[in-house]
């Protein structure tokens, strides 16, 4: 039972609790650069997830064979291999998408999200858990990039995934598809989520306090039980 719970936890923690973009603020370069549209965000996140999952799998498999002195070098080699595979496959099968993402696909190699997960997780855990962790982190990255890309696409070019969602009456905010728009959107989204979290925590604390106070106000009951 507890094993199942921890496996689920391995996956879900990356989704929100330790979300790479909103909570850990990792992998900012692709996050900010490619999210001019939702589809770009999705493609980038899927490519990153592919690299993350396979690198995690291989690294957790051979983690005991790699001498600690050269572990980073080996990780980078393995990550770079998968990134090159993604790059070649995308160029061959999806030339349009590959063009839109440009140099940011090869740059996945240096995405600290990926190396970070290898150092923090795959190099210390088994294959099953590492793959779950990678999938979770990837899904969280996808969620974040889709949100950023979606907001920027709607406000910046009136569309979402290519379909028009805002009327022609609305004048697109050019700034949203410029780099500044990425920073603005990311900042505002982060502020919103942090604010929500703080509110939730405050409420929880108040609830505990209330409970505590009300139990003190009726000492008779407590005394009676004791």
């Amino acid at each position: 039972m507890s094993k199942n719970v921890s496996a689920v936890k391995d996956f879900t923690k990356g989704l929100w609790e330790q979300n790479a973009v909103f909570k850990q603020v990792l992998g900012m370069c692709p996050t900010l650069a490619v999210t001019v549209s939702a589809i770009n965000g999705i493609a980038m996140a899927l490519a990153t997830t592919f690299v993350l999952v396979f690198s995690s799998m291989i690294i957790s498999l051979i983690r005991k064979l790699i001498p600690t002195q050269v572990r980073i070098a080996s990780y980078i080699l393995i990550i770079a291999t998968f990134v090159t595979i993604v790059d070649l496959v995308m160029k061959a099968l999806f030339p349009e998408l590959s063009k839109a993402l440009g140099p940011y696909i090869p740059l996945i190699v240096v995405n600290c999200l990926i190396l970070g997960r290898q150092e923090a997780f795959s190099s210390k855990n088994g294959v099953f858990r590492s793959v779950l962790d990678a999938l979770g982190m990837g899904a969280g990255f996808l969620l974040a990039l889709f949100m950023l890309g979606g907001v920027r696409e709607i406000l910046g070019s009136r569309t979402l995934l290519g379909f028009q969602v805002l009327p022609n009456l609305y004048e697109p905010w050019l700034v949203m598809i410029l780099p500044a728009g990425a920073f603005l959107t990311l900042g505002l989204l982060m502020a919103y989520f942090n604010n929500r979290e703080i509110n939730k925590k405050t409420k929880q604390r108040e609830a505990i306090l209330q409970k505590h106070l009300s139990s003190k106000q009726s000492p008779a009951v407590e005394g009676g039980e004791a």
Partner: protein
Amino acid sequence: MNTIVKMLITLTIVGVISGGLLSQISNWAEPKIEMNRKLETERAIFLVQPEAKSYLKIEEADFELYQVFKDENKSESIGYALPFEGNGFQGKIRLMVGVNVDLQQLVGLEVLEQVETPGLGTKVTEKPFTNQFIGLTANPIVNWTKAEANKDKSEIQTITGATISSKAIVVIINDGLSKLRSTVENGEAK
């Protein structure tokens, strides 16, 4: 000593496996990538030379140049398609120009690659701007103006807020044209 050997062996093994895998993938992907590139060029050629039915790459020229023909069996040439690149506002602009057979009139223009400012500079890729070049006589070169364009003076009107990008397109076309003209005149391409 022992650790050094172990380090070397580990990295070598990882490197060899990685290299082997990549060469396999590359063998599979390269022809497809080449094919995509070719399709894209082909598409652009027929866009800037709408009347063309077939084309031929001119190998003698020291830059990329295509001659286009009116029919499938490449007998009657109706002009050239010339991919050319130069500097835009922030980065490289790559475009394809269609020129008629006497190298005077532009037949079409298509911007293949650009990294101009979204919303301003990117307007150079849109029809209202590129259509100005269709049927324009470059005699001897294309000129630009901020006022209303006079076709008799080979003029095009630049885009408000994107003068540099507009001028860049004109400069690239003129560079390409002069190169094309000197190549054709020297008889390297017939």
